[in-house]
């Protein structure tokens, strides 16, 4: 047992705790690995700390995850780039653990280190590591190997490159579906580093194999590769090699594969060029929009706007729009909901006339949908239509939809619509708002659910910001202050909440003249909860109003409250008084 000098004690403890029984302490030490390394110096870090960590790979996942992350930025602590290779062994053993997140982090760190390594170091230590992992006995090592090929490949000699390509091709045909999945999802990354001559000859062969895999889970990762590879290939190769695959995939037996295609299709449009898009991809996409699996239609409907953006308006109107019309009355509410969340984005693409002619009826039918999410999604994107056709055409049908949502049975729906009220107010204008929505805003303040009342108070503040204090003074303040006589104490409390939110927006003058008398009156309420909320509110008003008002009104009121029989009221009153004293002390 060695005794350590007093100033070094914390570091000594940190080192000891690398092996503590308590996982939290080990985690703590691993997170400060750089401190330990600095304390040990570069040489001992290389010779002792790193080998020590290499043997540590049976620790808990959290510790291993932290270790994998730390090692990724450890090059400075082992003596710079020329020593980077010493970091590879511990990361290699982390690449073989069975916990996916640890492996992924280790792979990420290896990539970081490998991309900084010098070419001959790469050949000497990194490439052998890739080969070792790729030939690993257990699938975990081989899965990790797939993720680091692209780093190893770049700095290699031609002979090694040939070997690496062959190894990757082996991994694409591995017995374990996990390895094939990893190979499929990393193929795009690997392909970016491979020379274009081999791209067609070898990478595309691997890709073809993966696209024909028995396991759905492998094929659907290959779909992701389509877009990545498509961007690397020359347009004519892309048309020849990728297009047939994607068209095939769009008719795959497995809905999960078609779902992936529906999500990715728009990315391919650019790669294959406008002609093929028109002749092949548009029909494929139309098929997906009409798929008999709802999940596929949801994915396809969600990409309608992105896809249309890549087409010219005529094509969109001719081919896509009829499908959109069908989807707007789809049997699945989730499909309609997905459509509603993006369909407003089509307005700018189609232009004003087409929007009025084709899209408006769809908007209107979706606004009347029986499923609240659909209506909400339309309302949330209202600003996009407003830019194209103006709100007038919509406002007729808008109001019933809003009112219905505002009174929906489910409080979450009401909450969602409240959050859109400021947006609606800004789009619809003051006039419309005064007529129709003002009453709703007050009604929410007395909702049965607290979250709604809270959101309603917040809404008043945002409206005051939107339309200015004068408007709020006329349209909001009197109604709010009326509520102070409500027999229910929870509603009276909402008045206080609204005041505390609105006071900073309304400014000192209105606060003093309108709010303060009401608050002082409330301090004489019979319910203690009201009283201590008054105390809290007064404290928040201190910075807003003049010092004279504080001294004259607020202090007196708080002093009264500080003698209240209720302990909580006294507590908050005293706290507020203390903060008055604090601010005056700071000023003097």
């Amino acid at each position, binding site marked *: *047992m*060695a*005794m*350590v*000098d007093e*100033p*070094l*004690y*914390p*570091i*000594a*403890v*940190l*080192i*000891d*705790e*690398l*092996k*503590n*029984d*308590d996982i939290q*302490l080990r985690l*703590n030490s691993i997170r*400060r690995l*750089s*401190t330990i390394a*600095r*304390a*040990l*110096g570069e*040489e*001992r*870090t290389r010779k002792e*700390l790193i080998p020590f960590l290499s*043997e540590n790979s*049976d620790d808990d996942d959290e510790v291993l995850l932290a270790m994998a992350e730390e090692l990724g930025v450890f090059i400075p602590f082992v003596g710079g780039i020329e020593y980077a290779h010493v970091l590879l062994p511990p990361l290699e053993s982390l690449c*073989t*653990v*069975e916990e*996916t997140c640890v492996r992924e982090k280790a792979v990420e760190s290896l990539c970081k280190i490998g991309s900084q390594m010098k070419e001959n170091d790469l050949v000497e230590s990194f490439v052998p590591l890739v080969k070792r992992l790729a030939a690993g006995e*257990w*699938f*975990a090592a081989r899965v990790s190997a797939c993720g680091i090929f692209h780093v190893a490949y770049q700095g290699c000699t031609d002979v090694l490159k040939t070997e690496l390509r062959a190894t990757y091709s082996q991994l694409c045909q591995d017995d*374990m*579906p*996990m390895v094939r*999945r990893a190979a499929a999802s990393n193929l795009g990354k690997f392909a970016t580093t491979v020379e274009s001559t081999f791209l067609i000859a070898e990478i595309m062969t691997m890709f073809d194999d993966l696209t024909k895999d*028995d*396991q*759905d*889970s492998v094929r659907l990762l290959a779909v992701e590769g389509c877009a990545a590879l498509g961007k690397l290939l020359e347009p004519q190769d892309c048309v020849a090699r990728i297009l047939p695959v994607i068209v095939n995939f769009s008719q*795959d*037996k*497995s*809905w*999960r594969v078609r779902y992936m295609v529906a999500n990715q299709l728009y990315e391919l449009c650019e790669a294959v060029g406008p002609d093929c898009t028109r002749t092949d991809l548009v029909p494929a996409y139309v098929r997906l929009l009409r798929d*008999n*699996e*709802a*999940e596929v239609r949801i994915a396809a409907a969600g990409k309608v706007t992105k896809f249309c953006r890549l087409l010219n308006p005529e094509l969109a109107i001719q081919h896509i729009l009829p499908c959109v019309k069908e989807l707007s009355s789809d049997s699945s509410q989730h499909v309609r909901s997905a459509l509603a969340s993006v369909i407003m984005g089509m307005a700018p693409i189609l232009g004003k006339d087409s929007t009025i002619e084709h899209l408006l009826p769809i908007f209107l039918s979706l606004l009347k949908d029986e499923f609240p999410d659909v209506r909400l999604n339309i309302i949330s994107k209202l600003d996009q239509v407003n830019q194209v056709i103006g709100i007038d055409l919509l406002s007729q049908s808008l109001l019933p939809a809003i009112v219905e949502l505002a009174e929906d049975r489910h409080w979450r729906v009401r909450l969602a619509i409240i959050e859109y009220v400021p947006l609606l107010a800004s789009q619809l204008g003051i006039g419309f708002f005064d007529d129709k929505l003002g009453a709703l805003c007050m009604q929410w303040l007395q909702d049965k659910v607290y979250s709604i009342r809270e959101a309603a108070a917040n809404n008043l503040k945002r409206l005051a910001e939107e339309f200015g204090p004068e408007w709020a003074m006329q349209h909001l303040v009197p109604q709010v202050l009326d509520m102070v006589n409500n027999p229910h104490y929870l509603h009276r409390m909402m008045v206080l909440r609204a005041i505390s939110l609105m006071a900073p927006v309304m400014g000192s003058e209105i606060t003093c003249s309108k709010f303060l008398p009401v608050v002082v009156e409330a301090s004489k309420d019979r319910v203690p909860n009201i009283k201590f909320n008054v105390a809290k509110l007064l404290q928040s008003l201190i910075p807003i109003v003049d010092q004279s008002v504080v001294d004259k009104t607020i202090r007196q009121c708080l002093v009264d409250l500080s003698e209240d029989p209720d302990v909580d009221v006294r507590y908050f009153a005293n706290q507020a008084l203390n903060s008055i004293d604090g601010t005056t002390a700071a000023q003097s």
Partner: protein
Amino acid sequence: MAYHMIFRFRQPRRRFELASQFVMSDQSRAKKSVFGERSAGEEVQEAGVSSAVDIISAIEFDNSGNHLATGDRGGRVVLFERTDTNNSSGTRRELEEADYPLRHPEFRYKTEFQSHDPEFDYLKSLEIEEKINKIRWCQTANGALFLLSTNDKTIKFWKVQDKKIKKICDMNSDPSRAIGNGTIASSSNSNITSSCLVNGGVSEVNNSLCTDFSLPPGGISSLRLPVVTSHESSPMARCRRVYAHAHDYHINSISNNSDGETFISADDLRINLWNLEISNQSFNIVDVKPAKMEDLSEVITSAEFHPTHCNMLAYSSSKGSIRLIDLRQSALCDSHSKLFEEPEQAGPKSFFTEIIASVSDIKFAKEGRYLLSRDYMTLKLWDINMDAGPVATFQVHEYLKPKLCDLYENDSIFDKFECCISGNGLRAATGSYSNLFRVFGVAPGSTETATLEASRNPMRRHVPIPSRPSRTLSSITRVVSRGSESPGVDGNTNALDYTTKLLHLAWHPNENSIACAAANSLYMYYA
């Protein structure tokens, strides 16, 4: 030579006294070998005396056949490992095909762990038993074993690995100065927090530690890394994931997918699909719950994934049908792609017809072409390409037919017998009463059948079904027919003991041996 090992489970259940709990005895050779110090052979008692928590409720070989797991009513999982694995496994298979008498697989106790504990669902005011309903092995990785175990409600993912027992020495700080790890910890924390406050931020900790002590560029030589010395290793089980709160009803099956990343769990009315790595969400793929519970006429009794086609799974129902569904077709697979049902039988229907039609277990054969199902009276083999009817039907205990009324009275009619099929797909086995189990040849044209008893004295009662003498019988029937002089059970049904039933059994994936559980005992049979 049929039977050769028993593992018997008894109290006490404390974890670290395993060694004395297991008895392996080989009665037929009048030789006992005992694990542990106690000569426990004498203590072996008949099943009836054993405690209810020790009764085995699940049994499963892993894919390689090198490990066997059992689960019991006390929520415990016990693992056995094969001890006779020789290196020439390739030649073994050849020898096996040549029907050559071989050294039988030997298993020994490896480890055990408490998988599930009794729980209480406060929302529904229901007790949740700890009983293990099913065990399934997952892909091994890095020499560690992985398995899924489930009780009525919660599925758990376990990793069993040899853990080295570590001893740490050569610490920097003298433990006598700070007593115990706790105080070391607190001292370190207090140091760190104080430096935090000085610098006003947690992120500063590293810098403050370093700048305060102005570390020399060569490092501080007095600091040492702890030295870990490891002596021996012992298997340790750790629960990696818990998949809970997804089932309103009791889970009856779990099954892994061939893609290695997903599995299903089935309860009475629903089947859920999980990703092994994600424990907080699952997808409902089958829901047979009717809009009104009064309309309920059929429940799911068992479900299994196809062994190679990742998109196919089969589930059986209490009405005696088996449905094959294709996950590719749709996200919700409430409509099946194939339905296997026994064609409606002519003749009188009794009160019991529907009860005994209920399928208690289904198993795919290794290649996935055939499907084995067990209902109360029969074992059926189906070809998944032929949905007109079963390829073959085997009567398991036809002699019970007149006794259905009694069996209904004492609830035995609701017993759920499992079935299993050999790795080569040539034979199938299933359990019966009086600790009997029956083995059938299922290959086309095969007529072999055999009845064996799981007990310490297997020669006591054998029921050979006369088979054509011209046929070369496999060794398993040879074994059985040897002790066939005693009167058959058929003539002796009064002796039938409904309380000793053999519900759970598993066939070794690549050898002719069967593990079966009778009450608290595990028997290994080989042919």
